[in-house]
């Protein structure tokens, strides 16, 4: 049997996996990165609009800081986020942008002086400060109080991934391309690596590592209509789930992006609306202010997507032979802005729709976009239940997004989690207690098990069609586990997904090739995807409230009294057709920002019994410390700095917040 040994095995070559790998490599550990595709083709490249980090360089970002980024993130999450981890995240995000600036990302820069922008449909002249000239620029995004999304035109993820992948090449980190992890090797207490299939030759290889990190991205392809790349099938989450030990958190929290182009579902960035684009209906009427007078087009994505679907139900959609859609109007931004700052949007409109967004409106409708849930980890990125297994990025439930992620927080999370988890995974490997001691018999058993499963598909007598089962799953998820959910529909979805899972155990193949065989890949992935889909649907059925992107028409209110908790799904036995669900309570008594109204969306919710008490405590601390710095107040409300790796604890300098002394940086 072929075995590859390394210190850190990273599953996934996108931004999170690469940054994590670079971190571990620079701490002196051997790293191997596995990737389905050449890493620069990872779905990270599809992030268009921006990366949230409170640099406060723009005049419309003046006054921004970690506190505001934290509050926006927690409100966006509808209080589902882990607030300590959210704090770690917002403190590291500016460092991540600055690191990438040093590594070569051509961030769009501030130009001093007057310029015309579109705000709330009106042309406004704003003046950028002289002292900000040449610093990293920010644009407006949904659900934020300040202009905070750092960007590279509208190819932000692409440019970040270029620089990140280049640095990994510079560090001589091996990336094994066109291979796929198909099982984790573990003994129910400790993870030892993965069984990996070479997608060209079909050979199975065991990769053994002290630490294994899942950074394989989201699960958008559980849905028929999604912005996600075809490789985003949630397989990394499935691998963790199939250990029976690791858990998946909040899988029912699925985000729908308001502006997928219709009907293909390809993303056009939130930056379109951030830069002043408007949503319009069949009458050409700008409808969002009717629903969201405060944030309008720039409420959080879950809210905007729901308002759009509601508006379509009211008959205000534009009819087409593929169904109804709405319009995104960016014509008011002008040709220069569109050709320079929204060039990918421009290209997508040209090639896929045959329209010119300078003159034409873009047909859009919400499409699945992001998986808030994933492998549940603690703040170090290590699985809470399976030692030696880590996760980062969209594949993880770390958990800064709770039930709704803010635009621009995803690429920010990939790099920030890569930086932070890269340090913790290195600490883990440095500790001699974590050296791997694994009998080859265990490895052999896993290899044999996986080879038998593949042989079963290739040579068995199964008659089910894998791609038909997968298509049916995607249809069920899109039609019954979508933006608006009801108990009855979810029940029928769960029942039918269970049936599909049973049938998927009898998939047969027409193509018997042992090497490259797309039908075989579809077969075994579909079996895995169905388990993840069941975690989403069953989690959604069980959660009888509405929170963030999870909206139940039959339980329309957020219910903190009963549901201020994180869903944990595990898959106990291969014979099961449902995940086992457990819940992890979020402690209101420790929250820096106790639950309340988000500032957009529904205003009625059921309070947690402890919320009033915690609110009073927070107010008392704020009053008592009225003269203290914001750092001291924050520390009194919810200490978190000790959780960060030491090198990332420092403050972040801004034009209006200069760093004064070495001692202050160290603090």
């Amino acid at each position, binding site marked *: 049997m072929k075995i590859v040994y390394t210190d850190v095995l990273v599953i996934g070559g996108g931004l999170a996996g690469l940054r994590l790998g670079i971190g571990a490599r620079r701490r002196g550990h051997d790293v191997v990165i596995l990737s389905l*595709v*050449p*890493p*620069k*083709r*990872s*779905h990270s*490249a*599809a992030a268009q609009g921006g990366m949230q980090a409170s*640099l406060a360089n723009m005049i419309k970002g003046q006054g921004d800081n970690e506190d505001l980024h934290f509050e926006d993130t927690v409100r966006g999450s509808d209080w589902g986020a882990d607030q300590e981890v959210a704090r770690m995240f917002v403190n590291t995000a500016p*460092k991540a942008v*600055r*690191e990438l*600036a*040093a590594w*070569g990302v*051509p*961030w*769009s*820069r501030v*130009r001093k002086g007057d310029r015309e922008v579109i705000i709330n449909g009106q042309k406004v002249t704003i003046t950028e400060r002289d002292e900000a*000239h040449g*610093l990293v620029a920010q644009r407006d995004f949904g659900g934020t109080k300040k202009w905070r999304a750092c960007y590279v035109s509208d190819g932000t993820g*692409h*440019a970040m991934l*270029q620089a990140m992948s*280049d640095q990994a*090449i*510079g560090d001589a980190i091996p990336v094994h*391309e*066109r291979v796929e992890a198909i099982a984790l090797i573990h003994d129910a207490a400790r993870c030892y690596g993965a069984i990996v299939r070479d997608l*060209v030759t079909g050979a199975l290889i065991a990769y053994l590592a002290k630490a294994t990190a899942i950074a394989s991205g989201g699960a958008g392809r559980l849905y028929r209509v999604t912005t996600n*790349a*075809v490789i985003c099938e949630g397989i990394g989450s499935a691998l963790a789930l199939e250990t029976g030990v690791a858990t998946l958190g909040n899988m029912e929290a699925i985000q729908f992006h308001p502006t997928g182009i219709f*009907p293909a579902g390809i993303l056009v960035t939130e930056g379109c609306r951030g830069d002043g684009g408007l949503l319009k209906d069949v009458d050409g009427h700008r409808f969002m202010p009717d629903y969201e007078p405060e944030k309008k087009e720039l409420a959080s994505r879950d809210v905007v997507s729901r308002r759009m679907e509601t508006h379509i139900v009211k008959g205000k959609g*534009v009819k*087409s*032979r593929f169904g109804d859609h709405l319009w995104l109007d960016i014509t008011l931004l002008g040709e220069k802005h569109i050709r320079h700052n929204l060039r*990918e949007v421009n*290209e*997508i409109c040209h*090639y*896929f*729709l*045959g*329209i010119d967004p300078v003159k*034409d*409106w873009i*047909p859009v409708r919400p499409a699945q976009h992001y998986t808030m849930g994933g492998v549940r980890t603690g703040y170090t990125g290590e699985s809470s239940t399976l030692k030696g297994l880590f996760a980062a990025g969209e594949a993880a439930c770390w958990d800064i997004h709770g039930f709704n992620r803010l635009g621009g927080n995803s690429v920010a999370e990939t790099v920030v989690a890569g930086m932070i988890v890269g340090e913790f995974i290195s600490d883990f490997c440095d500790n001699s207690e974590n050296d791997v001691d694994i009998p080859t018999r265990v490895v052999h058993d896993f290899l044999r098990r996986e080879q038998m499963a593949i042989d079963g598909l290739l040579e068995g007598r199964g008659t089910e069609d894998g791609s038909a089962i997968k298509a049916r799953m995607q249809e069920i998820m899109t039609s019954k586990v979508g933006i608006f959910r009801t108990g009855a529909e979810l029940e029928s979805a769960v029942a039918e997904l269970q049936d599909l899972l049973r049938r998927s155990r009898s998939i047969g*193949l027409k193509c018997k*090739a042992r*090497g*490259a*065989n*797309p*039908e075989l890949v579809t077969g075994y992935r579909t079996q895995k995807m169905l388990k993840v889909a069941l975690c989403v649907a069953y989690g959604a059925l069980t959660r009888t409230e509405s929170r963030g992107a999870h909206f139940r028409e039959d339980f329309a209110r957020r219910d903190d009294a009963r549901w201020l908790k994180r869903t944990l799904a595990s898959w106990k036995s291969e014979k099961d057709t449902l995940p086992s669900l457990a819940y992890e309570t979020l402690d209101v008594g420790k929250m820096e920002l106790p639950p309340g109204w988000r500032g957009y969306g529904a205003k009625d919710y059921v309070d947690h019994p402890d919320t009033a008490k915690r609110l009073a405590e927070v107010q008392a601390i704020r009053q008592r410390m009225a003269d203290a710095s914001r750092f001291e107040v924050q520390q009194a409300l919810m200490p978190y700095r000790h959780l960060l790796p030491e090198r990332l604890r420092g*403050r972040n*300098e*801004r*034009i209006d917040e200069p760093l004064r002394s070495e001692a202050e940086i160290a603090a």
Partner: protein
Amino acid sequence: MNDLTLKPDAAVQNGAVVKPVTVHRRTGNGNGLPRQLAISILRYNPQDAASVPHLQTYGIEEADGMTLFIALNEIREKQDASLQFDFVCRAGICGSCAMVVNGRPTLACRTLTKNLPAEITLAPLPFFELIGDLSVNTGKWMRGMSERVRGWLHLKDPNPDLSRIEERMDPDLAEKIYELDRCIECGCCVAACGTARMREDFVGAVALNRVARFRLDPRDRRTDADYYELIGDDDGIFGCMSLLGCHDVCPKDLPLGTQIAFLRRRMVRMGFR
């Protein structure tokens, strides 16, 4: 066919008022029926000793808004499960799906069939290692290319202070660098390159564009002398015959012609030093 009863287009039939975007004109035989496409694919599986290169033709009914991504997946699902091809983003941004479409290297995912004749021939990109059918190993080649031209930013300060305000950069320069950074390493430029056909070690426009990009970047500590060491020979900048096939086919419209010309002048200057 001789059925001359012209059926009005479905969108008109519905009487719906639509903006031009939703009117997907049939470009077929004028009778309103979907076109029948004949897609011929150059097939060969090097993993299979019995396989020989051959063209195989699949018939498929055209649908509204059909791209080659949609067409190829439909063929694989309904007609031939063994067909190999690569798609990732299906939105024209990742560079996975470059192939030769009716003789021209391009991105298949954003190629609408309505812009093609009813007979379509698809072949894998030449020059790159063939994995099977339409799938080629651009990733391996691109990594080798990056290693060869040391295609990563060589930081002036390897340990920047991340707590401090970032270094400034002129906004126009940042945009110029991004312009070159938009390369998606799809391989079209190399597949269309006359020099690459003759010199298998030619670095290709993609590599020269990388060098031009780092050369432009004040954060990179390298000088023209360093770049000359990397590309100052006939497998590098001096191998280019200026046929500019690269420039013609680049799906991202990168200014490859001007970048190569400019780089050559700079490198000639270095060579005469």
